[in-house]
Protein backbone atom coordinates (compact mmCIF):
# COMPACT_ATOMS: atom_id res chain seq x y z
CA UNK A 1 0.00 0.00 0.00
CA UNK A 2 1.53 3.26 -1.15
CA UNK A 3 -0.26 6.23 0.30
CA UNK A 4 0.58 9.64 1.68
CA UNK A 5 -0.81 9.08 5.15
CA UNK A 6 0.35 8.69 8.72
CA UNK A 7 -1.38 6.09 10.92
CA UNK A 8 -4.06 4.28 8.85
CA UNK A 9 -6.34 4.46 11.89
CA UNK A 10 -6.33 8.25 11.81
CA UNK A 11 -6.85 8.99 8.15
CA UNK A 12 -10.38 10.33 8.48
CA UNK A 13 -9.64 12.56 11.44
CA UNK A 14 -6.51 14.00 9.82
CA UNK A 15 -8.30 14.42 6.52
CA UNK A 16 -11.16 16.34 8.09
CA UNK A 17 -8.67 18.52 9.95
CA UNK A 18 -6.77 19.26 6.75
CA UNK A 19 -9.98 19.96 4.90
CA UNK A 20 -11.41 22.37 7.44
CA UNK A 21 -8.10 24.15 7.91
CA UNK A 22 -7.74 24.55 4.15
CA UNK A 23 -11.20 25.96 3.66
CA UNK A 24 -12.22 27.89 6.78
CA UNK A 25 -14.25 30.21 4.57
CA UNK A 26 -16.53 27.27 3.73
CA UNK A 27 -16.46 24.77 6.56
CA UNK A 28 -16.54 24.33 10.28
CA UNK A 29 -16.30 21.09 12.16
CA UNK A 30 -18.28 19.94 15.15
CA UNK A 31 -15.40 19.11 17.51
CA UNK A 32 -14.60 15.43 18.00
CA UNK A 33 -16.88 14.38 15.14
CA UNK A 34 -16.71 13.84 11.41
CA UNK A 35 -19.38 16.48 10.90
CA UNK A 36 -18.58 19.56 8.83
CA UNK A 37 -21.12 22.29 8.27
CA UNK A 38 -21.49 25.59 6.45
CA UNK A 39 -19.45 28.33 7.96
CA UNK A 40 -22.28 30.75 7.15
CA UNK A 41 -25.21 28.81 8.60
CA UNK A 42 -26.67 32.04 9.88
CA UNK A 43 -27.32 33.04 6.27
CA UNK A 44 -29.75 30.17 5.79
CA UNK A 45 -31.84 30.60 8.93
CA UNK A 46 -35.37 29.52 8.16
CA UNK A 47 -34.39 27.27 5.26
CA UNK A 48 -34.56 23.51 5.38
CA UNK A 49 -31.12 22.12 6.20
CA UNK A 50 -29.74 19.45 3.87
CA UNK A 51 -27.48 16.81 5.33
CA UNK A 52 -25.68 14.06 3.51
CA UNK A 53 -22.80 11.80 4.36
CA UNK A 54 -21.48 8.31 4.27
CA UNK A 55 -18.19 6.53 4.44
CA UNK A 56 -15.07 8.53 3.64
CA UNK A 57 -12.88 7.81 0.65
CA UNK A 58 -15.18 9.45 -1.90
CA UNK A 59 -13.70 12.95 -1.68
CA UNK A 60 -14.62 15.62 -2.61
CA UNK A 61 -17.99 13.98 -1.77
CA UNK A 62 -19.64 14.84 0.57
CA UNK A 63 -17.85 17.67 2.36
CA UNK A 64 -16.84 19.34 -0.89
CA UNK A 65 -20.49 20.01 -1.63
CA UNK A 66 -21.23 21.82 1.60
CA UNK A 67 -21.93 25.44 0.86
CA UNK A 68 -24.28 27.92 -0.64
CA UNK A 69 -26.83 26.21 -2.88
CA UNK A 70 -25.97 22.64 -1.91
CA UNK A 71 -25.49 20.85 1.43
CA UNK A 72 -25.74 22.42 4.86
CA UNK A 73 -23.62 19.72 6.50
CA UNK A 74 -21.84 16.49 5.67
CA UNK A 75 -21.03 13.58 7.93
CA UNK A 76 -17.73 11.80 7.24
CA UNK A 77 -17.68 8.18 8.38
CA UNK A 78 -14.69 5.90 8.55
CA UNK A 79 -13.31 4.88 5.15
CA UNK A 80 -16.08 3.14 3.19
CA UNK A 81 -18.10 2.80 6.40
CA UNK A 82 -21.35 4.58 7.16
CA UNK A 83 -21.12 7.24 9.87
CA UNK A 84 -22.80 6.51 13.17
CA UNK A 85 -26.26 7.77 14.22
CA UNK A 86 -24.97 10.02 16.99
CA UNK A 87 -22.82 11.95 14.52
CA UNK A 88 -25.60 12.23 11.96
CA UNK A 89 -27.84 13.44 14.76
CA UNK A 90 -25.29 16.12 15.68
CA UNK A 91 -25.33 17.31 12.09
CA UNK A 92 -29.11 17.42 12.04
CA UNK A 93 -29.24 19.48 15.25
CA UNK A 94 -26.61 21.84 13.93
CA UNK A 95 -28.38 22.75 10.71
CA UNK A 96 -31.98 22.73 11.87
CA UNK A 97 -33.30 26.25 12.17
CA UNK A 98 -36.92 25.27 12.65
CA UNK A 99 -37.81 24.38 9.05
CA UNK A 100 -36.56 20.81 9.48
CA UNK A 101 -33.79 18.80 7.90
CA UNK A 102 -33.67 16.72 4.76
CA UNK A 103 -31.31 13.75 4.60
CA UNK A 104 -29.73 12.47 1.39
CA UNK A 105 -28.75 8.84 1.95
CA UNK A 106 -26.99 6.46 -0.41
CA UNK A 107 -28.62 3.06 -0.53
CA UNK A 108 -26.38 0.79 1.53
CA UNK A 109 -27.83 -1.15 4.44
CA UNK A 110 -25.37 0.51 6.79
CA UNK A 111 -26.14 4.02 5.64
CA UNK A 112 -29.86 3.47 5.63
CA UNK A 113 -29.86 2.01 9.16
CA UNK A 114 -27.59 4.63 10.69
CA UNK A 115 -29.45 7.53 9.11
CA UNK A 116 -32.78 5.99 10.17
CA UNK A 117 -31.58 5.75 13.77
CA UNK A 118 -30.43 9.36 13.63
CA UNK A 119 -33.79 10.37 12.21
CA UNK A 120 -35.49 8.62 15.16
CA UNK A 121 -33.25 10.49 17.59
CA UNK A 122 -34.05 13.81 15.92
CA UNK A 123 -37.76 13.18 15.92
CA UNK A 124 -37.62 12.43 19.63
CA UNK A 125 -36.31 15.98 20.01
CA UNK A 126 -39.07 17.32 17.79
CA UNK A 127 -36.91 18.11 14.80
CA UNK A 128 -38.77 17.44 11.56
CA UNK A 129 -36.73 15.16 9.33
CA UNK A 130 -37.41 13.69 5.90
CA UNK A 131 -35.10 11.77 3.65
CA UNK A 132 -34.40 10.22 0.27
CA UNK A 133 -32.43 7.05 -0.38
CA UNK A 134 -30.52 7.37 -3.66
CA UNK A 135 -30.10 4.13 -5.61
CA UNK A 136 -28.78 5.16 -9.00
CA UNK A 137 -26.31 2.35 -9.78
CA UNK A 138 -27.91 0.24 -12.48
CA UNK A 139 -25.12 -2.33 -12.41
CA UNK A 140 -27.03 -4.12 -9.69
CA UNK A 141 -30.22 -6.05 -10.34
CA UNK A 142 -33.21 -4.35 -8.83
CA UNK A 143 -35.91 -6.10 -6.84
CA UNK A 144 -38.17 -5.23 -3.97
CA UNK A 145 -36.98 -8.35 -2.15
CA UNK A 146 -33.33 -7.32 -2.06
CA UNK A 147 -31.29 -4.45 -0.79
CA UNK A 148 -31.81 -2.83 -4.18
CA UNK A 149 -29.34 -0.67 -6.01
CA UNK A 150 -26.40 1.24 -4.64
CA UNK A 151 -26.19 4.99 -4.36
CA UNK A 152 -23.23 6.31 -6.35
CA UNK A 153 -22.25 9.41 -8.33
CA UNK A 154 -25.81 10.36 -9.23
CA UNK A 155 -26.19 11.36 -5.58
CA UNK A 156 -24.35 14.55 -6.46
CA UNK A 157 -27.12 15.55 -8.84
CA UNK A 158 -29.57 14.96 -5.98
CA UNK A 159 -27.50 17.24 -3.73
CA UNK A 160 -27.47 19.92 -6.39
CA UNK A 161 -31.17 19.82 -7.23
CA UNK A 162 -32.31 19.74 -3.60
CA UNK A 163 -29.73 22.31 -2.53
CA UNK A 164 -31.00 24.74 -5.13
CA UNK A 165 -34.61 24.10 -4.16
CA UNK A 166 -33.87 24.61 -0.47
CA UNK A 167 -31.99 27.82 -1.23
CA UNK A 168 -35.02 29.04 -3.16
CA UNK A 169 -37.12 28.38 -0.07
CA UNK A 170 -38.76 24.99 -0.64
CA UNK A 171 -40.19 23.47 2.52
CA UNK A 172 -39.58 19.96 3.78
CA UNK A 173 -42.57 18.40 2.01
CA UNK A 174 -41.72 20.11 -1.25
CA UNK A 175 -38.15 18.84 -1.02
CA UNK A 176 -39.42 15.32 -0.42
CA UNK A 177 -41.70 15.50 -3.44
CA UNK A 178 -38.93 16.88 -5.60
CA UNK A 179 -36.49 14.21 -4.44
CA UNK A 180 -38.95 11.45 -5.16
CA UNK A 181 -39.75 12.91 -8.55
CA UNK A 182 -36.14 13.07 -9.74
CA UNK A 183 -34.93 9.85 -8.09
CA UNK A 184 -36.01 7.44 -10.86
CA UNK A 185 -34.50 9.75 -13.46
CA UNK A 186 -30.93 9.50 -12.19
CA UNK A 187 -28.96 6.45 -13.26
CA UNK A 188 -25.29 5.60 -13.17
CA UNK A 189 -22.92 2.89 -14.30
CA UNK A 190 -19.18 2.53 -13.86
CA UNK A 191 -16.13 0.81 -15.27
CA UNK A 192 -12.93 0.20 -13.31
CA UNK A 193 -9.35 -0.07 -14.51
CA UNK A 194 -7.98 -0.85 -11.06
CA UNK A 195 -9.12 -1.48 -7.51
CA UNK A 196 -8.72 0.65 -4.38
CA UNK A 197 -7.01 -0.04 -1.08
CA UNK A 198 -8.66 0.89 2.21
CA UNK A 199 -5.82 2.18 4.43
CA UNK A 200 -6.72 -0.01 7.39
CA UNK A 201 -7.03 -3.08 5.16
CA UNK A 202 -3.76 -2.53 3.32
CA UNK A 203 -4.57 -4.45 0.15
CA UNK A 204 -6.92 -3.74 -2.76
CA UNK A 205 -10.56 -4.85 -2.70
CA UNK A 206 -10.00 -6.44 -6.09
CA UNK A 207 -7.18 -6.57 -8.58
CA UNK A 208 -7.33 -6.48 -12.34
CA UNK A 209 -4.80 -7.73 -14.85
CA UNK A 210 -2.58 -5.37 -16.84
CA UNK A 211 -5.11 -5.23 -19.67
CA UNK A 212 -8.32 -6.02 -17.82
CA UNK A 213 -11.27 -3.81 -16.97
CA UNK A 214 -14.40 -4.50 -14.99
CA UNK A 215 -17.85 -3.13 -15.77
CA UNK A 216 -20.36 -2.32 -13.09
CA UNK A 217 -18.14 -1.90 -10.04
CA UNK A 218 -19.34 0.06 -7.04
CA UNK A 219 -17.57 2.82 -5.14
CA UNK A 220 -16.33 0.60 -2.31
CA UNK A 221 -14.50 -2.06 -4.23
CA UNK A 222 -17.71 -3.99 -4.84
CA UNK A 223 -17.16 -6.20 -7.87
CA UNK A 224 -19.01 -5.54 -11.10
CA UNK A 225 -20.85 -7.64 -13.63
CA UNK A 226 -18.21 -8.44 -16.23
CA UNK A 227 -14.49 -8.43 -16.77
CA UNK A 228 -12.92 -8.09 -20.15
CA UNK A 229 -9.91 -6.83 -22.02
CA UNK A 230 -9.25 -3.10 -22.05
CA UNK A 231 -11.35 -1.38 -24.72
CA UNK A 232 -11.03 1.98 -26.43
CA UNK A 233 -13.06 4.79 -24.88
CA UNK A 234 -15.64 4.57 -27.67
CA UNK A 235 -16.29 0.91 -26.87
CA UNK A 236 -16.68 1.64 -23.16
CA UNK A 237 -19.19 4.31 -24.08
CA UNK A 238 -21.13 1.82 -26.20
CA UNK A 239 -21.38 -0.57 -23.27
CA UNK A 240 -22.24 1.99 -20.61
CA UNK A 241 -24.64 4.13 -22.61
CA UNK A 242 -26.16 0.91 -23.93
CA UNK A 243 -26.90 -0.30 -20.39
CA UNK A 244 -28.29 3.08 -19.39
CA UNK A 245 -30.49 3.22 -22.45
CA UNK A 246 -31.91 -0.23 -21.64
CA UNK A 247 -33.05 1.22 -18.33
CA UNK A 248 -34.24 4.62 -19.49
CA UNK A 249 -35.63 3.49 -22.84
CA UNK A 250 -34.88 6.96 -24.18
CA UNK A 251 -36.91 8.59 -26.90
CA UNK A 252 -35.62 11.09 -29.43
CA UNK A 253 -35.69 14.57 -27.95
CA UNK A 254 -35.43 13.48 -24.32
CA UNK A 255 -33.41 15.97 -22.30
CA UNK A 256 -30.52 14.80 -20.16
CA UNK A 257 -27.83 16.05 -17.82
CA UNK A 258 -24.53 14.16 -18.00
CA UNK A 259 -21.93 13.58 -15.31
CA UNK A 260 -18.67 11.92 -16.25
CA UNK A 261 -17.03 11.09 -12.95
CA UNK A 262 -13.45 10.00 -12.41
CA UNK A 263 -13.09 7.28 -9.79
CA UNK A 264 -9.91 8.72 -8.27
CA UNK A 265 -6.78 7.90 -10.21
CA UNK A 266 -8.10 8.54 -13.70
CA UNK A 267 -6.81 11.85 -15.07
CA UNK A 268 -9.08 14.55 -16.44
CA UNK A 269 -7.59 14.00 -19.90
CA UNK A 270 -9.22 10.57 -20.05
CA UNK A 271 -12.44 11.88 -18.56
CA UNK A 272 -12.73 14.56 -21.26
CA UNK A 273 -11.99 12.06 -24.02
CA UNK A 274 -14.64 9.76 -22.59
CA UNK A 275 -17.13 12.64 -22.34
CA UNK A 276 -16.48 13.49 -25.97
CA UNK A 277 -17.43 9.95 -26.97
CA UNK A 278 -20.47 10.02 -24.68
CA UNK A 279 -21.74 13.22 -26.26
CA UNK A 280 -21.32 11.72 -29.72
CA UNK A 281 -23.28 8.66 -28.68
CA UNK A 282 -26.07 10.66 -27.04
CA UNK A 283 -26.34 12.76 -30.20
CA UNK A 284 -26.73 9.53 -32.18
CA UNK A 285 -29.59 8.57 -29.89
CA UNK A 286 -31.22 11.92 -30.57
CA UNK A 287 -31.00 13.14 -26.99
CA UNK A 288 -30.74 16.76 -26.06
CA UNK A 289 -27.90 17.38 -23.60
CA UNK A 290 -28.84 20.26 -21.30
CA UNK A 291 -26.09 20.09 -18.71
CA UNK A 292 -22.62 18.54 -18.50
CA UNK A 293 -20.10 18.09 -15.74
CA UNK A 294 -16.73 16.31 -15.73
CA UNK A 295 -14.45 15.58 -12.81
CA UNK A 296 -13.42 13.26 -10.03
CA UNK A 297 -16.35 14.06 -7.77
CA UNK A 298 -17.52 10.73 -6.30
CA UNK A 299 -14.29 8.84 -6.00
CA UNK A 300 -13.29 5.52 -4.58
CA UNK A 301 -9.88 6.32 -3.08
CA UNK A 302 -7.24 5.70 -5.76
CA UNK A 303 -9.35 3.46 -7.96
CA UNK A 304 -8.87 4.07 -11.68
CA UNK A 305 -12.00 4.16 -13.78
CA UNK A 306 -14.96 6.26 -14.65
CA UNK A 307 -18.68 6.38 -13.99
CA UNK A 308 -21.32 7.80 -16.24
CA UNK A 309 -24.49 9.32 -14.83
CA UNK A 310 -27.42 10.29 -17.00
CA UNK A 311 -30.22 12.34 -15.52
CA UNK A 312 -33.42 12.80 -17.46
CA UNK A 313 -34.34 16.41 -16.85
CA UNK A 314 -37.07 18.98 -17.35
CA UNK A 315 -36.31 22.66 -17.88
CA UNK A 316 -37.16 23.28 -14.24
CA UNK A 317 -34.54 20.77 -13.11
CA UNK A 318 -31.94 22.26 -15.45
CA UNK A 319 -32.57 25.56 -13.74
CA UNK A 320 -31.73 23.94 -10.41
CA UNK A 321 -28.58 22.39 -11.87
CA UNK A 322 -27.48 25.82 -13.04
CA UNK A 323 -28.48 27.56 -9.82
CA UNK A 324 -25.66 29.61 -8.27
CA UNK A 325 -23.55 27.47 -6.00
CA UNK A 326 -20.53 28.19 -3.87
CA UNK A 327 -18.80 25.08 -2.55
CA UNK A 328 -15.27 23.72 -2.65
CA UNK A 329 -15.95 21.12 -5.29
CA UNK A 330 -19.05 21.75 -7.43
Amino acid at each position, binding site marked *: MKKIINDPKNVVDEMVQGLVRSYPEYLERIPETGVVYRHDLKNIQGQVGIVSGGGSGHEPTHAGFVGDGMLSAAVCG*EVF*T*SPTPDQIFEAIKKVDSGAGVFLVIKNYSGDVMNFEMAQDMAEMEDIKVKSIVVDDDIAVENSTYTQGRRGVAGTIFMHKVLGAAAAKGANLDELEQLAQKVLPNIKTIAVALSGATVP*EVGKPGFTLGEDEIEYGVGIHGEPGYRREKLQPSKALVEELVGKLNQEFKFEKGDQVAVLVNGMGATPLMEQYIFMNDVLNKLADLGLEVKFTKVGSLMTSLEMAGISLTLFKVSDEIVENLNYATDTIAW
Partner: protein
Amino acid sequence: MLDVENVKSWMTKFNEQIQAHHDYLSELDTPIGDGDHGNNMARGMNAVMEAIADKDFTDVPAIFKTIAMSLISKVGGASGPLYGTAFMEMAKVGDGEVSALLPAALAGIKKRGKAETGEKTMVDVWAPIAEKTDFTADDVDKAVEATKDMIATKGRASYVGERSVGHIDPGAMSSGYLLKALLEVEE
Protein backbone atom coordinates in the same frame (compact mmCIF):
# COMPACT_ATOMS: atom_id res chain seq x y z
CA MET B 1 -29.21 -16.23 34.13
CA LEU B 2 -26.41 -13.79 33.34
CA ASP B 3 -25.15 -11.26 35.85
CA VAL B 4 -23.03 -8.18 35.22
CA GLU B 5 -19.79 -10.10 35.67
CA ASN B 6 -20.97 -12.76 33.21
CA VAL B 7 -21.69 -10.08 30.64
CA LYS B 8 -18.25 -8.56 31.19
CA SER B 9 -16.55 -11.87 30.65
CA TRP B 10 -18.82 -12.54 27.64
CA MET B 11 -17.60 -9.29 26.11
CA THR B 12 -13.99 -10.07 27.02
CA LYS B 13 -14.13 -13.40 25.27
CA PHE B 14 -16.00 -11.95 22.28
CA ASN B 15 -13.44 -9.17 22.03
CA GLU B 16 -10.60 -11.70 22.05
CA GLN B 17 -12.19 -13.52 19.14
CA ILE B 18 -12.79 -10.31 17.20
CA GLN B 19 -9.25 -9.05 17.64
CA ALA B 20 -7.80 -12.48 16.84
CA HIS B 21 -9.92 -12.78 13.68
CA HIS B 22 -9.80 -9.13 12.67
CA ASP B 23 -8.13 -9.86 9.32
CA TYR B 24 -10.17 -12.97 8.68
CA LEU B 25 -13.45 -11.08 9.09
CA SER B 26 -12.27 -8.42 6.66
CA GLU B 27 -11.19 -11.11 4.25
CA LEU B 28 -14.63 -12.70 4.36
CA ASP B 29 -16.04 -9.23 3.66
CA THR B 30 -13.81 -8.71 0.61
CA PRO B 31 -15.26 -10.92 -2.14
CA ILE B 32 -18.90 -10.17 -1.24
CA GLY B 33 -18.64 -6.86 0.63
CA ASP B 34 -16.26 -3.99 1.16
CA GLY B 35 -13.58 -5.61 3.29
CA ASP B 36 -14.13 -3.65 6.48
CA HIS B 37 -16.08 -5.96 8.78
CA GLY B 38 -12.98 -6.88 10.81
CA ASN B 39 -12.03 -3.23 11.22
CA ASN B 40 -15.55 -2.22 12.12
CA MET B 41 -15.93 -4.89 14.78
CA ALA B 42 -12.42 -4.40 16.18
CA ARG B 43 -12.99 -0.65 16.50
CA GLY B 44 -16.37 -1.24 18.11
CA MET B 45 -15.17 -3.85 20.57
CA ASN B 46 -12.23 -1.70 21.60
CA ALA B 47 -14.75 0.98 22.47
CA VAL B 48 -16.95 -1.52 24.32
CA MET B 49 -14.05 -2.84 26.38
CA GLU B 50 -13.02 0.68 27.26
CA ALA B 51 -16.56 1.65 28.21
CA ILE B 52 -17.14 -1.33 30.53
CA ALA B 53 -13.67 -1.71 32.03
CA ASP B 54 -13.33 -0.72 35.68
CA LYS B 55 -16.89 0.46 35.72
CA ASP B 56 -19.61 -0.71 38.08
CA PHE B 57 -23.00 -1.44 36.63
CA THR B 58 -26.07 -1.68 38.81
CA ASP B 59 -27.67 -4.39 36.69
CA VAL B 60 -27.51 -6.32 33.44
CA PRO B 61 -29.69 -3.89 31.45
CA ALA B 62 -27.30 -1.09 32.40
CA ILE B 63 -24.24 -2.84 30.99
CA PHE B 64 -26.16 -3.94 27.87
CA LYS B 65 -27.13 -0.33 27.29
CA THR B 66 -23.53 0.83 27.56
CA ILE B 67 -22.43 -1.87 25.15
CA ALA B 68 -25.19 -0.90 22.73
CA MET B 69 -24.25 2.78 22.82
CA SER B 70 -20.57 2.01 22.26
CA LEU B 71 -21.36 -0.15 19.27
CA ILE B 72 -23.84 2.30 17.80
CA SER B 73 -21.48 5.24 18.14
CA LYS B 74 -18.24 3.53 17.13
CA VAL B 75 -18.90 0.86 14.52
CA GLY B 76 -20.90 2.51 11.79
CA GLY B 77 -21.56 0.53 8.64
CA ALA B 78 -24.29 -2.12 8.73
CA SER B 79 -22.98 -4.07 11.67
CA GLY B 80 -22.98 -1.09 14.06
CA PRO B 81 -26.72 -0.46 14.07
CA LEU B 82 -27.42 -4.21 13.96
CA TYR B 83 -25.28 -5.21 16.92
CA GLY B 84 -26.21 -1.98 18.67
CA THR B 85 -29.88 -2.71 18.27
CA ALA B 86 -29.38 -6.30 19.42
CA PHE B 87 -27.86 -5.14 22.71
CA MET B 88 -30.41 -2.35 23.10
CA GLU B 89 -33.22 -4.89 22.77
CA MET B 90 -31.47 -7.20 25.24
CA ALA B 91 -31.31 -4.29 27.68
CA LYS B 92 -35.08 -3.97 27.41
CA VAL B 93 -35.58 -7.58 28.57
CA GLY B 94 -34.86 -6.39 32.08
CA ASP B 95 -32.68 -9.24 33.30
CA GLY B 96 -30.07 -11.77 32.19
CA GLU B 97 -32.33 -14.63 31.16
CA VAL B 98 -30.65 -16.00 28.04
CA SER B 99 -33.76 -17.71 26.72
CA ALA B 100 -35.39 -14.27 26.57
CA LEU B 101 -32.31 -12.26 25.55
CA LEU B 102 -31.54 -14.01 22.30
CA PRO B 103 -35.05 -13.83 20.83
CA ALA B 104 -35.19 -10.14 21.78
CA ALA B 105 -31.85 -9.51 20.05
CA LEU B 106 -32.98 -11.45 16.97
CA ALA B 107 -36.21 -9.50 16.71
CA GLY B 108 -34.26 -6.24 16.95
CA ILE B 109 -31.81 -7.25 14.24
CA LYS B 110 -34.57 -8.40 11.89
CA LYS B 111 -36.51 -5.20 12.36
CA ARG B 112 -33.48 -2.93 11.99
CA GLY B 113 -32.15 -4.77 8.95
CA LYS B 114 -35.53 -5.56 7.43
CA ALA B 115 -34.11 -9.01 6.91
CA GLU B 116 -35.53 -12.51 7.16
CA THR B 117 -33.77 -15.84 7.41
CA GLY B 118 -32.28 -17.16 4.20
CA GLU B 119 -30.93 -13.78 3.08
CA LYS B 120 -27.33 -14.60 3.96
CA THR B 121 -26.87 -12.24 6.87
CA MET B 122 -26.19 -12.50 10.57
CA VAL B 123 -29.91 -13.24 10.95
CA ASP B 124 -29.14 -16.72 9.66
CA VAL B 125 -27.03 -17.38 12.72
CA TRP B 126 -29.13 -15.62 15.33
CA ALA B 127 -32.43 -17.17 14.18
CA PRO B 128 -31.69 -20.91 14.55
CA ILE B 129 -29.82 -20.33 17.84
CA ALA B 130 -32.41 -18.04 19.42
CA GLU B 131 -35.13 -20.54 18.63
CA LYS B 132 -33.40 -23.36 20.51
CA THR B 133 -33.78 -23.78 24.30
CA ASP B 134 -30.25 -25.12 24.39
CA PHE B 135 -27.55 -24.71 21.78
CA THR B 136 -24.03 -26.00 21.24
CA ALA B 137 -20.92 -24.61 19.60
CA ASP B 138 -21.57 -27.08 16.84
CA ASP B 139 -25.04 -25.61 16.22
CA VAL B 140 -23.45 -22.20 15.84
CA ASP B 141 -20.74 -23.43 13.49
CA LYS B 142 -23.34 -25.17 11.35
CA ALA B 143 -25.46 -22.03 11.11
CA VAL B 144 -22.45 -19.94 10.16
CA GLU B 145 -21.34 -22.51 7.59
CA ALA B 146 -24.84 -22.68 6.15
CA THR B 147 -24.61 -19.06 4.98
CA LYS B 148 -21.98 -20.22 2.49
CA ASP B 149 -24.52 -21.76 0.13
CA MET B 150 -27.02 -18.93 0.33
CA ILE B 151 -27.60 -16.19 -2.21
CA ALA B 152 -27.41 -12.81 -0.52
CA THR B 153 -30.42 -10.54 -0.88
CA LYS B 154 -29.63 -8.06 1.92
CA GLY B 155 -26.51 -6.06 2.72
CA ARG B 156 -23.65 -5.35 0.37
CA ALA B 157 -23.32 -9.02 -0.56
CA SER B 158 -26.63 -8.72 -2.40
CA TYR B 159 -24.86 -6.63 -5.07
CA VAL B 160 -22.98 -9.66 -6.28
CA GLY B 161 -26.17 -11.74 -6.34
CA GLU B 162 -25.51 -15.37 -7.25
CA ARG B 163 -21.76 -14.86 -7.04
CA SER B 164 -22.17 -14.54 -3.27
CA VAL B 165 -22.61 -18.31 -3.17
CA GLY B 166 -19.54 -20.12 -1.84
CA HIS B 167 -18.60 -17.40 0.65
CA ILE B 168 -19.45 -17.34 4.36
CA ASP B 169 -21.19 -14.11 5.41
CA PRO B 170 -18.84 -12.02 7.56
CA GLY B 171 -21.61 -10.81 9.90
CA ALA B 172 -22.69 -14.41 10.37
CA MET B 173 -19.14 -15.30 11.32
CA SER B 174 -18.81 -12.49 13.89
CA SER B 175 -22.24 -13.38 15.29
CA GLY B 176 -20.97 -16.93 15.61
CA TYR B 177 -18.07 -15.69 17.71
CA LEU B 178 -20.48 -13.78 19.92
CA LEU B 179 -22.77 -16.73 20.50
CA LYS B 180 -19.92 -19.15 21.15
CA ALA B 181 -18.40 -16.69 23.62
CA LEU B 182 -21.76 -16.71 25.41
CA LEU B 183 -21.62 -20.50 25.60
CA GLU B 184 -18.26 -20.34 27.31
CA VAL B 185 -19.62 -17.92 29.88
CA GLU B 186 -22.69 -20.02 30.55
CA GLU B 187 -20.68 -23.21 31.07
